[in-house]
């Protein structure tokens, strides 16, 4: 057994070393580790929260999309309806316009026909009078036979 005064020196060194390690190694490293642990836990919690929020946002986006789709379909349906109405209206208008044009054309034709008839009637009367005068051998005085002429024209 050779326990000597070396023991005292070793004890002093040991105690100093414990103090030093505690102060300059253990405390900062432990604080850092705890800080890291806390930060990791916080980070994980934040990630969880973010995920949750993202889920909510996705849900919200889906709802909005659905709504927008419905609205779009509605708008489309309305537009179609309107378009068909417009088409119907223009069809009707066209029909009316066509009818009107047809009617005016018809009336013009009728006028034309009656005018032609009138002309024809006059000419026929003249031809008849000329024919009759030839037959009678003398000229029928259109003035004296005015009444007769008129009756004839009427008859034609």
């Amino acid at each position: 057994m050779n326990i000597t005064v070396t023991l005292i020196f070793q004890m002093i060194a040991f105690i100093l070393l414990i103090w030093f390690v505690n102060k300059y190694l253990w405390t900062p490293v432990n604080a850092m580790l705890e800080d890291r642990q806390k930060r990791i836990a916080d980070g994980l919690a934040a990630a969880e929260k973010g995920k949750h929020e993202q889920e909510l946002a996705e849900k919200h986006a889906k709802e909005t999309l659905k709504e927008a789709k419905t609205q779009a379909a509605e708008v489309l349906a309305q537009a179609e309806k309107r378009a068909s109405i417009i088409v119907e209206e223009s069809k009707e208008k066209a029909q009316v316009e066509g009818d009107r044009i047809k009617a005016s054309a018809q009336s013009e034709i009728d006028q034309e026909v009656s005018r032609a008839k009138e002309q024809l009637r006059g000419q026929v009367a003249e031809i008849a009078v000329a024919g009759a005068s030839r037959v009678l051998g003398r000229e029928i005085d259109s003035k004296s036979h005015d009444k007769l002429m008129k009756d004839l024209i009427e008859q034609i």
Partner: protein
Amino acid sequence: MAEAASGGGTVQYIQHHLTNLCAGQCDPVTHKATGFWALHLDTIFFSYALAALIMVVSWRLGRSLVSDAPSGFQNFVETIVDFVAQQVRDTFPGHNPLIAPLALTIFVWVWLMNFMDLIPVDLLPVLANAIFGIEYLKVVPTTDLSATFAMSLVVFALIIYYNIKIKGLSGYAKMFLFHPFGKFLVPVNIVMTIIEELAKPLSLGLRLFGNLFAGELVFLLIALIGGTMFLAAGFFGAMFWGGLQVLLDLGWLIFHLLVITLQAFIFMVLTIVYLGMAHVEDH
């Protein structure tokens, strides 16, 4: 030492290697300490140097801790710190902020002092002799009882301190009086408890000292294979003994790496356990 000439040389070699560099009350012939007032300069030098190494490294590391992306050495230290903290959490009841740094200090310092054992036995003494003219040098501080008992006595002082602090002086006295056999065998209890308490620092100090001393001795014996046989044998004999020495040395080195870690670990864990026992109120 009254053996054959070569045997005398062998004993001298071993004796020489197991002698501390003594100053103060030392025997002028054997260079052994003769009284309490003898300083083992080599023990003090190497243990202080290793303590200084720990201080410098921990101081530098403590200044440049990186929380987010630790790398290299910091990872290594974090692993050790975490390992020690885990041991303390597992075996220490209650909370005492001193225990973990104490355990960490013991583990690292004892491991480093033990590690000196793995340096080739003749390297540092020969260098010291050649450069500084130092005759004796024992490089492993933990093969010196003064070093191991210094630690175990500090731990012992802490055990007593915390026993009194937690249990109170009367509680501590009661432990001596009524433990382990109850109130009818008070004298036996006192003797048993005193033995039990004294066995703690004694076993701590002696276990570490014994393991490392024996380890050192085996290294010396292995070194002797080359020292004695190598010179005596012929060429092939020299090859054989030299090869054997290298092989044995390597084997013992690898095994001893386990031993020094284990001894450091045991010292640390027992310290935690003993201090934990001091912290338990109802014993």
